[in-house]
């Protein structure tokens, strides 16, 4: 039998609904003039085990009970029912800057924060150099943090938390902060923690990160456990459980449509093979982008295109329906047109993409030039070797290309090209 780090049985947490009601109403309720408040089970009969050394993901949409579960496990609040056995200290990676005091210096805040997380001065002393080096604020460590930039603040806060040594580390969406470079370092540090054999409980909306860091996971919905198991299966269940209309589609009201009488954009959607609009896709499957637009006045110079851009706006590629050879390109009609473009499997990298709509009269003017009308995320799962290394590939695309061994060029030619 493997040792468990956390073993929860029938864990439940009830909240009273309507906690924003005024103190007066609550007083009357206390006195008994009003009936009991309605309640809601934020966690309902949650049972799961996390093995020691596992990297365990808790996923689900907003309000599924993920944060409540973390709060109960880290003893911020008590459960209403059930129990959980926790082996060892649980350290929560604090929301950035929690417990930082603006008047205290970076150094003082490191110690304050660490003691909040249950570390002793002695433990911090041993790690202090590493913490400071990780954060990159060496020069300002004796400056009150109120003079810090928000980036420095975040980095220092994360550095403290990342160098904690609890047996179980709980992480809730912290990677959403900081610049890309720092996020990458955080991720690397997380992978390191996992490799060290520490138990990690990870809550995130970012399926790429979840997939990269975690081995097992649990899907929560409405406070209940939908499924537990290998992280890929859990993510799959999660993605297929997302209601199609939750995203992946944008429509414009008639008077707000980009364009004019030659092209007027009505709707754009990104869909999977089953024609369901989605916000998250696997890169091993094709992704379809569909534009619906009205044409009142047919203009042969009209070109309709999209750009696919990365999260930072860098354009990955531009594609238009006129790229198709003469004859097989879709034909523009008066009235409603719906053009679909397929982004082939195995092309995109993992990450967030934005779609820019570009419609124009060739050589005359742009008709619609709309940036980032729709976003979607991808989970890279094409290619066996591609995404197993842990680190993310650079670049907006990550095609698995052909590599072959060929005959080396004759020596004479090599010398020639070197000169």
């Amino acid at each position, binding site marked *: 039998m493997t040792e468990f780090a956390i073993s929860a049985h029938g864990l439940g947490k009830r*909240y009273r609904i309507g*906690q924003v009601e005024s*103190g*007066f109403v*609550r*007083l009357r309720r206390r006195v008994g003039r009003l009936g009991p408040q309605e309640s809601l089970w934020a966690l309902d009969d949650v049972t799961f085990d996390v093995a020691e050394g596992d990297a365990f993901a808790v996923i689900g949409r907003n309000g599924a009970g993920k944060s409540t579960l973390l*709060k*109960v*496990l*880290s*003893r*911020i*609040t*008590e*459960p*209403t*029912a*059930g*129990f*959980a*056995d*926790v*082996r*060892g200290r*649980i350290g*929560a990676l*604090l*929301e950035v800057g*929690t*417990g930082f*005091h603006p*008047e*205290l210096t970076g150094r*003082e805040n490191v*110690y*304050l924060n660490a*003691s*909040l*997380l*249950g570390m*002793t*001065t002695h433990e911090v002393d041993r790690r202090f150099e590493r913490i400071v080096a990780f954060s990159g604020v060496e020069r300002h460590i004796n400056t009150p943090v109120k003079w810090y930039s928000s980036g420095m603040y975040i980095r220092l806060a994360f550095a403290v938390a990342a160098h904690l040594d609890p*047996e179980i580390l709980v992480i809730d969406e912290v990677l959403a902060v900081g610049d890309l470079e720092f996020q990458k370092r955080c991720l690397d540090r997380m992978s390191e923690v996992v490799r060290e054999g520490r138990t990690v409980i990870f809550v995130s909306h970012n399926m790429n990160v979840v997939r990269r860091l975690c081995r097992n996971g649990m899907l929560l919905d409405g406070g209940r456990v939908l499924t537990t198991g290998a992280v890929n299966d859990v993510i799959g269940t999660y993605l297929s459980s997302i209601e199609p209309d939750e995203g992946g589609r944008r429509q414009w009201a008639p008077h707000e449509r980009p364009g004019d009488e030659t092209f007027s954009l009505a709707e754009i959607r990104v869909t999977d093979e089953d024609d369901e609009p989605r916000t998250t896709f696997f890169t091993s499957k094709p992704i379809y982008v569909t534009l619906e637009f009205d044409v009142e006045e047919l203009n042969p110079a009209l070109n309709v295109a999209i750009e696919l851009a990365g999260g930072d706006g860098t354009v990955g590629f531009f594609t238009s329906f006129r790229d198709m050879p003469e004859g097989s390109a879709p034909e523009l009609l008066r009235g409603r047109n719906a053009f679909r473009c397929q982004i082939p499997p195995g092309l995109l990298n993992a990450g967030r993409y934005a779609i820019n709509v570009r419609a124009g009269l060739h050589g005359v003017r742009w008709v619609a030039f709309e940036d980032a009308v729709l976003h979607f995320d991808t989970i890279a799962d094409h290619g066996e070797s591609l995404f197993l290394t842990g680190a993310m590939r650079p670049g907006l695309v990550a095609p698995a290309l052909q590599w072959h061994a060929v005959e080396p060029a004759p020596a004479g030619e090599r010398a020639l090209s070197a000169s």
Partner: protein
Amino acid sequence: MAIVGTVERVDSPISTRRIQPSTGFLAIDLQELWRYRELLYRMLWRDIKGRYKQTFLGPIWVILKPLVSMILMAAVFGGLAGFKSGTNTPYPLFLFAGMLIWNYFSSAFGGAAGSILSNSGLMTKVYFPRLYAPLATVVSPLVDLALAMTITFGLFGWFGTWPNWHIVFLPVFVLLALVVGMGIGIWIAGAMVRFRDIGFMLPYAIQLAMYASPVLYPVSRLPKPYSDLIALNPMTSVLDGFRWALIAAPAPNVGVLAVSAAVGIVILVGGLFNFRRVERTIVDHV
């Protein structure tokens, strides 16, 4: 052929904790408080440094406040209303000593009462022994008290009286003031989260309580039933004892002192149990 060996599993010192709804009376987890002891020190430092942030005169304010209010009060109550200390202690000195410890009590009490609210940002994000929030807020104003006490030496010179050996007992009564402030404060701390109105009531309550405590007048000046009843006020023992120790005021009535001190301790012990009950889920109401 494989050589099969058994690896002895060394029992690690990692302990298992069961997280579950708690029931019944809950004792204070002293072990845990000890484990987190450094947190108290860090929180104190945070409070103290935060208090004097970017003030030029910093500590001067702490000294000026009781001094100015003492002068005003002495003029109104001592001068106009003709209040006396009841002994040969000069009334302004009597008043100042009383206000010193009363000011400490009121910041300790106010701080402890608001400690959950003021630390709610932390409490909703991380677990730590909740008791340290009120404890830090009652300990940090001790610095103010110590600073303000320096001025009493000026007053001693002015009035030509000096403390005697009683002063070694001063810490006892300061501690008693802490007990009372913390005791009442933590009774209110939980309720204050749920009923914010209490926050508005507190300043008035403290003001009223001052008149119901022997700050402006000595117990000996009270008519008969009241001079006994005031023993139920835990601050009576604090004020009487503090004056006895600091300015060598005459010894208070031992019965009154004992009853009053006992009331203070009972309030604290009850408050601790109540706090334990409340702290378990208080963040749900923040």
